[in-house]
């Protein structure tokens, strides 16, 4: 392990011809945020109708404690808390990819219509096929809907290249049209089906058990793997397409892989838990300010996304006498942030 002589802030780990380079500040921020997420997750596992101490929670997790406590923690609460952590990370990473590709903090999947596409696709599966939230048809519908929305936004905003702000304005328009489509689908549905769809559509982790969590987790882990191999290309593409090509990046292939992976992340989360807004928008920007990296980095964005969502889910469950869908909490927090960001971006451009 050596400190790079090129500035005190990078750490190089070498073993033979193998070497890994990391920024000290990025690692510290990611570790601190991850530890905080773990603490909040333990807190989330201890809260509920049966209040538990952290020691009881850990005992149940490690299998020391058997019986009812273990059932409550492992079967009832754990899938939901793990889902909050993993889905938050997925949304944060997805937002980071889009914000980095477009070089614009507004271009997150929930603003540019991809979440709306996943929602419409999932809703179509629920209403037209009678599928349940988190089932395979809903996941497939969400992924197809998200990719179709991505293709539509891309095609409409392409004019010899993609310019960030045009993509966002068109994305907002597409998003509005897809929401209208979703409303239409809901109005056409039978009452019982519409109620299932409405609960799902509010964006809630309350219905997430192991059966909903595991398929989504598989998609998320695969997409993370793909992003891991493409992140080097992504950071070169921040320099512009020509510069990235000159550095030996396969720009078209990398961009396609990145978009598909990021859409898959949003879609997997949407399929299991419904649309959860603003985590993808806010997490990369919070991470960017904490780590002060050049451009948007995926790992810290995912770490912050996990912390944001697991915290928001505690607020949703326990802050008020009635439990709220977590999507509502993220909308309230994120909405304020979006207004601030819009004002900030407009001023910067003016």
């Amino acid at each position: 392990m050596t400190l790079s002589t090129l500035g005190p802030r990078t750490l190089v780990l070498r073993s033979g011809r193998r070497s890994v380079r990391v920024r000290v500040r990025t690692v510290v921020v990611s570790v601190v945020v991850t530890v905080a997420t773990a603490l909040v997750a333990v807190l989330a596992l201890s809260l509920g109708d049966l209040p538990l101490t952290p020691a009881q929670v850990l005992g149940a997790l490690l299998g020391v404690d058997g019986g009812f406590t273990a059932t409550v923690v492992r079967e009832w609460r754990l899938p939901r808390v793990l889902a909050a952590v993993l889905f938050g990370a997925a949304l944060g990473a997805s937002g980071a990819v889009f914000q980095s590709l477009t070089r614009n903090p507004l271009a997150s999947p929930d603003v540019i219509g991809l979440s709306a596409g996943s929602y419409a696709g999932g809703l179509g599966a629920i209403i037209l096929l009678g599928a349940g939230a988190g089932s395979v048809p809903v996941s497939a519908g969400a992924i197809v809907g998200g990719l179709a929305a991505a293709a539509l936004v891309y095609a409409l905003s392409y004019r010899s290249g993609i310019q960030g702000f045009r993509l966002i304005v068109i994305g907002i328009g597409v998003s509005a049209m897809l929401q209208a489509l979703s409303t239409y689908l809901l109005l056409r549905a039978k009452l019982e089906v519409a109620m299932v769809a409405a609960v799902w559509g509010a964006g809630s982790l309350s219905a997430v058990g192991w059966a909903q969590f595991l398929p989504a987790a598989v998609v998320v882990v695969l997409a993370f793997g793909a992003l891991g191999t493409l992140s080097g290309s992504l950071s070169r593409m921040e320099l512009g397409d020509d510069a990235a090509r000159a550095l030996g990046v396969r720009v078209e292939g990398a961009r396609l892989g990145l978009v598909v992976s990021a859409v898959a992340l949003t879609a997997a989360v949407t399929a299991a838990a419904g649309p959860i807004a603003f985590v993808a928008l806010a997490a990369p920007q919070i991470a960017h300010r904490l780590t002060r990296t050049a451009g948007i980095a995926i790992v810290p964005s995912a770490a912050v996304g996990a912390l944001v969502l697991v915290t928001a889910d505690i607020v949703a469950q326990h802050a008020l006498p009635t439990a709220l869908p977590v999507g509502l909490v993220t909308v309230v927090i994120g909405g304020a942030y979006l207004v601030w960001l819009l004002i900030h971006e407009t001023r910067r451009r003016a």
Partner: protein
Amino acid sequence: MTAPARLAADGLTIGYDRRIISENLSVSIPDGSFTVIVGANASGKSTLLRALARLLTPTSGTVRLDGRPLGDYQPKELARVVGLLPQTSIAPDGITVVDLVARGRYPHQGFLRQWSADDEAAVTQAMDATGTADLAERLVAELSGGQRQRVWIAMALAQQTPILLLDEPTTFLDIAHQIELMELLTDLNARGRTLVAVLHDLNQAARYGSHLIAVKEGRIVSEGAPGDIVTAAMVEEVFGLRCVVTPDPVSGTPSVSALGRARVAQR
């Protein structure tokens, strides 16, 4: 002057979408030369450079590097031999000089080989050669235009390619910074790099270039050492400008003075 070429194009037809810029263009870049491509606006000089860098795929014809078609190279393999400084590049928000220069090492890196001693040495060398070592910890956004362009060149140098292509590297620089940059390029060339640059300023091209390629409407009109080919007739043909060519009082290389209508003394 005509050393064997590593990079050469044969019978190229290139263009964007359906608009053809060049047809049946053949060119070879003398190894070890400082080749400068000159021509009027929209004459196809940048297009030619982009085809040499494989940013554009020709509709017909082939660009070859060491006898092998560019299309047969893996992207990273090519990027270890041919570097490019594009006309426009974007510095990500909040990037420092050393971070940006280090990104030039990408073609030499892999998933399990992210930062070798060679990478470190190449980055240090590139910053020393461009006089940007003192700026290492500064943010790229805070630099002056001249400094910033030197940082981009440092990034291209860190790539350590024997051949470096530069698309209008002096645009947006004031005259002093233009000269500074041209001298830096001359030094790099003297140390063994083959350079190919697209330039607007004919006098600078003639002074610093060792091999000139004059392009008009996608064709090569004239090619050779500046002293041999920069003549009033060539300038008139390529740029449609009547002029007088005299030896530059400092360098002795051809210097072009326009014959216009206004402010013409003693003629």
